[in-house]
């Protein structure tokens, strides 16, 4: 556990020293603030559904920028071999990088709580969907970071890692669009692969455990494949 904590601190420091995290946070909050003002004045409805959907889209575009360097950079600078030959398990390395990146993403998400506070100050929001929305965002971020790390572990080129991540996220996002072309039961598989299909009900306050399970199991799969893939080296 101590090793894991040390690795986590090292990774978090590396992220916080780099300007990438701050740039991503700035872009994220700028777009979010604009959307919040726009939708609040346009709809005059005290809910955060638009904001949650905006955060969903922005995460898909920005998380790859945060995860792309995790392993790719270490591979390029040949520090990965050094790390893997140290007396630490591959799983600990992966979990530390995962936890550090997820902490940053959730930190950026936490800044959006100010919108919930504004709604509470000037309106009477229904808090159930807001709690469910934040749960959906945490699970969504968890999956994106895990898949982003997997993609980063496959290459030493950061741009390739980011492109692979965005490509995978977009495929998962639109997976259900092809369901009408597929025969049974493949159509159900396509529908249930869809990121948005599991995200949308939660954001509106309707929480299925199977939706939670989708994000948790897919994150576990990505983390397992990353660790296993590193162990093969």
């Amino acid at each position, binding site marked *: 556990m101590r090793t894991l904590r040390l690795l986590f601190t090292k990774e978090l420091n590396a992220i916080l020293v780099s300007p990438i995290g701050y740039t991503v946070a700035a872009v994220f909050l700028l777009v979010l603030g604009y959307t919040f003002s726009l939708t609040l004045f346009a709809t005059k409805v005290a809910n955060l559904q638009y904001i949650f959907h905006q955060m969903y889209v922005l995460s898909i575009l920005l998380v790859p920028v945060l995860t792309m360097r995790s392993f790719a950079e270490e591979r390029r600078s040949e520090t990965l071999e050094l790390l893997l030959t140290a007396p630490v398990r*591959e*799983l600990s390395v992966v979990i530390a990088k995962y936890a550090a990146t997820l902490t940053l993403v959730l930190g950026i998400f936490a800044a959006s709580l100010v919108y919930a506070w504004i709604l509470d100050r000037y309106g009477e929001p*229904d808090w*159930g*969907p807001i*709690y*469910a929305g934040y749960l959906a965002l945490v699970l969504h971020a968890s999956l994106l970071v895990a898949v982003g790390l997997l993609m980063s572990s496959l290459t030493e080129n950061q741009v390739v890692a980011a492109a692979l991540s965005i490509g995978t996220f977009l495929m998962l996002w639109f997976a259900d669009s092809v369901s*009408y072309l597929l025969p049974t039961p493949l159509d159900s*598989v396509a529908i*249930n692969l869809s990121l948005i299909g599991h995200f949308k*009900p939660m954001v*509106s*306050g*309707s*929480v*299925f*455990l*199977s939706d*939670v*399970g*989708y994000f*948790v*199991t*897919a994150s*576990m*799969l990505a*983390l*397992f*494949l990353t*660790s*296993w893939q590193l*162990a*093969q080296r």
Partner: protein
Amino acid sequence: MSTELINSGWFLGIIAALVVLFAAGLKLPVRIGSTNRVVTAVLVVGAAVGIVILANVALFRHDAYLDLTREKAFTPSAEARELVRALQEPVDVAYFYQKQNPGARALTTMLRQLERQNPNFRVQLIDADQNPALASSLGVRTYNSAVLQAGGRRIEVVTTDDREIALGLLRLMRRSELVICFASGHGEYDIDNFEFHTHFEGAQSHSHDASGLAVVQMEQHGIGRLRRAQTRTGRAKGFIRDRTANPG
């Protein structure tokens, strides 16, 4: 013990099983048996993906649900849930919803929830604006139409209310014998006459309220009302007009 609690147990059990399986997977050798590294990699990745798909199927089959909205806006009525749970044969529901309609969006969530109550209840949610050809192929011309199909029978319900869907299910699954009622020759109005307001005839004058009337009559207005009620509840298969009967 409630189903939701049991299904929550399933959730925890499945996640715990996956943790154990993946932990065991990390201990696998670089090569399994006499296979080379590539084959081993394909086997491990395939097995891991397969296990996750199976886990998700199990989670879907044993789902628990929580409606966190203040008004419980996404919770289907008890009648609809009971009906769906009791389905013995497959029913396909294609719901052509209008994305901009909040009621229709809420119904899509309810249908998804109902789908998880019984594998015989299969739901397809279709954005009518994005799939006009599919709507046309099923003869759907109105937003928020649900096409219910089972064993060659088909019913279309235009609604944003889950109770109307339940009513449609009842109509679809009904196996009762057809009863034919003859409603002519007793002085009724024509069956196409939907007039059924409360009607008073008294000593003083014709009126639609009871003030100052000694005698109350409501003759001949029943059949149109009966027809409307039967059509609304889906009990009526059709009405045949007797051309030989005297009108009125």
